[in-house]
């Protein structure tokens, strides 16, 4: 019965619904964007009504929220956090800096495109994006999840070679532990 396609569809639907409605966010407050998170979560915008709540550790989190520019030093930590998260896991790039470097595009220590290093599901534009746009970003992510298109953990695993090459290009002294994928 489980192999039955229709019932699998139903199961998928339910699973995706639960995933979509319950997003535990690991907010990696790298840059100035971190200040927008409290506004998003508290009374005025209340992201919890979408089932979005903070997670304290990457083990429990579903969504990795990168809020702002990523220095190469920080990127190392972000990669580790991302790898410690458990699938299905999603990444939201938040603010212009994660998209193209923003105002730091020519900085000697800031990466310019996040998806080169870890797979990103949704980018939220703006410098900084207001809570409305953050929530809209989350809603977009939820749509993707419901459609089953958002599982980038698998993508990361499958293209690990490529991501690693990119990561190692800028993190010269690669001392990360090896995971038993």
């Amino acid at each position, binding site marked *: 019965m489980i192999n039955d396609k229709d019932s699998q569809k139903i199961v998928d639907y339910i699973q995706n619904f639960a995933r979509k409605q319950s997003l535990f966010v690991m907010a*990696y407050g790298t840059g100035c964007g971190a200040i927008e998170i409290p506004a998003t979560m508290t009374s005025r915008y209340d992201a919890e009504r979408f089932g979005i709540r903070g997670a304290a*550790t*990457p*083990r429990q989190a579903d969504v990795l929220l990168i809020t702002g520019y990523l220095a190469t030093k920080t990127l*190392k*930590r*972000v990669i*580790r*956090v991302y790898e*410690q998260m458990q*699938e299905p896991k999603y990444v939201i790039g938040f603010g212009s800096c994660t998209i193209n470097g923003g105002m730091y595009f020519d900085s000697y220590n800031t990466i310019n495109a996040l998806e080169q290093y870890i797979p990103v599901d949704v980018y939220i534009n703006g410098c900084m994006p207001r809570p409305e746009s953050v929530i809209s970003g989350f809603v977009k992510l939820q749509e993707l999840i419901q459609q089953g298109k958002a599982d980038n953990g698998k993508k990361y695993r499958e293209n690990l070679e490529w991501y690693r090459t990119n990561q190692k290009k800028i993190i010269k002294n690669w*001392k*990360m*532990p090896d*995971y*038993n994928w």
Partner: protein
Amino acid sequence: MNIFFLIILIFFSGAILSFIINRIAPKFSGITTFVTIAVVSFLFFTQVEINSITQFSLGGIQMQFGVNNYTYIFAILVLGLSLLASLFSIKYMQDNDRLGYFYSNFILSIAGMVGIIFSRDFISFFIFWEIMTWSSYLIVIYDGARSSRSGLKYMIFSAIGAYAMLTAIVSIKGSYGTFIISEAIENGAFNFTDHIYIPIMLLVGFAVKAALMPLHVWAPNAYSKSPMSFTAIFSGAMSKMGILGMGLVLASVYSHSTDENAFNVLILRQILGWLGGITAVMATIYALIQTDAKKLLAYSSVAQLGYIIVGLSTGTKLGVMAALFLAIIHAVFKGALFMVAGAVERQVGTTDMTKISGLIRKMPFTFFTALVSIIALAGIPPLGGFVGKWMLYEALITESNNYFLVIVIFFSSTAAFMYSYRFLFGLFLGQEEKEIEHVKEAPVTMIIPMVILALILIVTGVYPGILFEPIAQGMQYLGYSDVNWDMSVLVNVWGEESNMAYINLTIGVVFVVIFIFLTLKNLKGTRYVGTKDISTSGEIPTENENLTFQLDFFKPFQRAAAPLYKRSMDKIWNDLGNALEAIFDFTRRIYTGNGQTYALFVIIFLVILLIFKNTLFTN
């Protein structure tokens, strides 16, 4: 030859033999010990008849040897534990010097305990008691200068206890004209009407071995400083000798108490109970701030003995049964735990919890033993420890109406979770230390005794009746008639019963269901990772970095309970010791070393005597 003399002979010749063998082939010293104890155990359990009496006389004193149902409980405990501990000891002590010294004292201390068990008169009881004491003292100082201070402390306190006991013994002889224990009881030595000091002195003597507050201060050091294979017996069995004596005395006192002395007995009961309770609490809170696993266990032993004494002090059927049950269970799990500490010490080289962590992968069997024993220690169902605690609470609430003592005991028992966890966590859990990567599981002869003890704990948890049977018979000897027990059902005075087997069945079913569910569910998706792979805000701990939280583990509790830590019995005894030293120094100065002064002394003495001659001497 009489079986009792044969046993003593075997023990003493075993002691001498192991001493000699060590000179020839140190390897076989431990095996000799094991064989000696095994032979004695075999003889004891096959040849000795319960309630048979052997009479003889030594130094003009009538003596009796014999075993009754009550002491038989302790015989099982002592011989069983000694057998396992001596097996454990073979490999544990392998690389040490002076094995002959160790093993001959080892055997002598066991001989002392077995002798105590089959002594039916006070003199042989005392003789064996002292043999046990000094042989164990010699083992405590086995470790050299480091432990000589704790050894001396142990010896002094033991002497205080032993001499208190001797005072009572000779007083019994003086007042009741016999040294035979049963006759003394019949003659009313423990009536608690006149010669109240006799039972009290005896209790003081036993209380020292049972590490009752305020006479416990020797115990933590002595337990932790002696070799672990001996401490397993030291804490497991030897402390129970104190319990044996206390049980005997208290049972006689209670069963002979009449209306006139009811109040006295009540006071005694309350004092003992509270002393036991305070012992339990204080030892517990000191246990949880220890960083050395051995010391933690030592304090824990003191605390557990506190429970047992509380149980004995109630004097009720359930209370005494709880105490005896706890005594056996405590011997089992504390024996196992000290063996665990010993195994860790041997394999790693230290038991300092701040230096060790993450041994679970290296020493799984040891961890299993530790886990089971700790569950029993904490009194968590379904293991044996719970049964004992259950009976203790029931006795306190339903039979002896000592409600606030319940709270004290419960506080201690809850705080015991803290140090129990600390022990498991400190040694076995947490991140793996880089320095102890080479560590392997302990040798088989060390694992076997530990695992046997763990299995005993599990079985007694499900079927406490196995232990209830001998205990009930022993209690009948003490004068408690109509002791009910069932294989797995606990009944309190109000008629309520708890079926341990039933509970265990439930737990087992739920366990299997959940375990299968968790294990099978997305089996492939489950990854086991190393303990270095933890979420540390993205930071990567280096190879040598150990993030395990070990120092000041219960600092907040320590702060909250700061008033409790202020008064330390050690300090009070130290002050007393210093005061005595001052007195000694003063008396020393009487001897000035000056001839004239001495001559003056003589003259003064003569003059004083002449002045007071009429008051001193009459016709």
